[in-house]
């Protein structure tokens, strides 16, 4: 079993569209949506949810005022300024360290798990699918990402699936690190813009930091052919695979999305679909070796 994770430093470069297209090409793979802040794959997959459960990523403090003597010890030990002068815990600021709970002399601070999201396990026309939804403003999306990946692996083992296709999240922080750690191969989707290149450099840095192998796809390459070439050269210099490029054809991508289809399902002969098919052939070789 091989897990292929698709990420992008910069958002909106086409991760989800690309993963869905791969789902059509490598039909029967397990699909996992790890962009838990903005999970969109379900919009195209119309999943039939088989199982779902609440996810708790941590605890939060709650002061029970009945025994509170307002001694101020909790405020003193809180590094996050999460407790107000009238002894109410700000749920957003509280990071759940438990200091106040431990040091409260009256033992009047409760410390309970809070639900931070929900995990869904589904069947779709392209294969089994795991996704999650993070409650807005919640932290610990890294833990939720790990949960989604673990569920996907479990399904792949149970059902004897060979490939897991994972849609990662943008950036280089905690959810991204959780998406790529231990992955067999990472595809970075970028675009030929100054910001795309800047963010690509940081993501490649991240892959090398964690010693993960990966390759690069340039989406919307014809928007700026010079910058696209620059990216090819950059990959060669760093010894990262250059997997191919996809043309800027927003109508094909949007029409597919509006029909709840992958670009391959929408029109297997459109330029975007053809480009992704070429890239998928290279990926198949890489995964087989």
């Amino acid at each position, binding site marked *: 079993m091989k897990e292929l994770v698709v990420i992008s430093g910069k958002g909106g470069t086409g991760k989800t569209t690309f993963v869905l297209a791969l789902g059509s090409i490598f039909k029967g793979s397990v699909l996992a949506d790890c962009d838990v802040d903005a999970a969109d794959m379900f919009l195209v997959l119309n999943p039939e949810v088989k199982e779902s459960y609440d996810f708790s990523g941590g605890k939060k403090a709650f002061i029970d005022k009945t025994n509170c003597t307002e001694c101020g010890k909790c405020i003193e030990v809180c590094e996050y300024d999460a407790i107000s002068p009238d002894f109410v815990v700000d749920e957003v600021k509280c990071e759940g360290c438990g200091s106040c709970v*431990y040091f409260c002399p009256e033992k009047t601070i409760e410390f309970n798990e809070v639900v931070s999201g929900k995990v869904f396990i589904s069947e779709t026309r392209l294969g089994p699918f795991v996704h999650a939804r993070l409650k807005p403003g919640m932290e610990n*999306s890294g833990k939720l990402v790990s949960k989604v990946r673990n569920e996907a692996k479990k399904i792949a083992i149970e059902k004897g699936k060979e490939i897991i296709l994972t849609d990662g999240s943008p*950036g280089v922080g905690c959810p991204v690190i959780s998406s790529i750690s231990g992955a067999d191969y990472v595809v970075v989707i970028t675009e030929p*813009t100054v910001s795309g290149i800047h963010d690509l450099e940081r993501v490649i840095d991240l892959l090398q930091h964690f010693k993960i192998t990966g390759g690069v796809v340039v989406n919307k390459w014809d928007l700026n052919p010079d910058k696209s070439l620059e990216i090819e050269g950059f990959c060669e210099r760093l010894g990262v695979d250059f997997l191919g490029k996809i043309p800027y054809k927003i109508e094909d991508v949007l029409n597919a999305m509006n029909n709840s289809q992958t670009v391959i399902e929408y029109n297997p002969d459109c330029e975007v679909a053809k480009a992704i098919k070429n890239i998928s052939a290279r990926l198949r070789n890489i995964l087989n070796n």
Partner: protein
Amino acid sequence: MKIAIASGKGGTGKSFIATNLAYALSENLQVSLVDCDVEEPNAYLFLNPEFKEKKDITVKVPVIDNSKCTGCRLCSTHCEFHALITVKDKTYVFEDLCHGCGFCMRICPHGAIGEKDKIVGEFSYGFVGRMDFYMGKMKVGTELATPVIRYVKNQVKDRGVVIFDSPPGTSCPVVETIESCDFVVLVTEPSPFGLNDLKLAVETVRSLGLRFGVVENRAMEGVNIIKDYLNREDIPLLSEIPLDREIAEVYSHGKLAVREIPSYRDKFLKIYDEIVKRVEL
């Protein structure tokens, strides 16, 4: 006045709106731009600020004095972030998992835990003409963006119009950026993905009780997926930026639309007027 530019979905044009808005306003107003998208800060690529100051951003992490540690495990069993582990009579620190709460230092009965600074990012400050420019850049390989954002926000001089370029998404780094702002501009695009992520962003700003409005980027004639939703929810549409290959190309070169395409200057100034109208209500 503090304005945050945010979006649920990445790549909808947050930095595009933030940089062009700041630049257009800076011709006549005192403006600061604060890039809080610390995982991937991009605004500087478009504004080319003259940097005056760069500083490491650090957090406190524990250091164990193993000559004093008895291996009692009080710290490692109480660390909610699993950043400490005690094996035999030695305790080890996983600095990347540490949230800097200081619990272990307070709880250690043997005084074996001190602290040291760990670099998590870099702060930069400079000017773009008369505009103040602030930026945080998270060190690659670091997990937590919030301490970097918090540091940058604390450096900002609160004068004139302050524009915050937020990270994408709806989780803690976004909340850290937008929570103290007078107005939030949510940037979206007319697609099912754009709409879904906009709804999540709306839920986030509403839960924080913030005033907000929407800019529809890459708008297309006859495509009303976003506008229909805004009408139903009674959310103001501040502006529509049309889908235009010329803008995409200008952007790809790291240039500003308000400088390259003159008609965009008024379009961005009008976004500000729409915001002012709603903040003064």
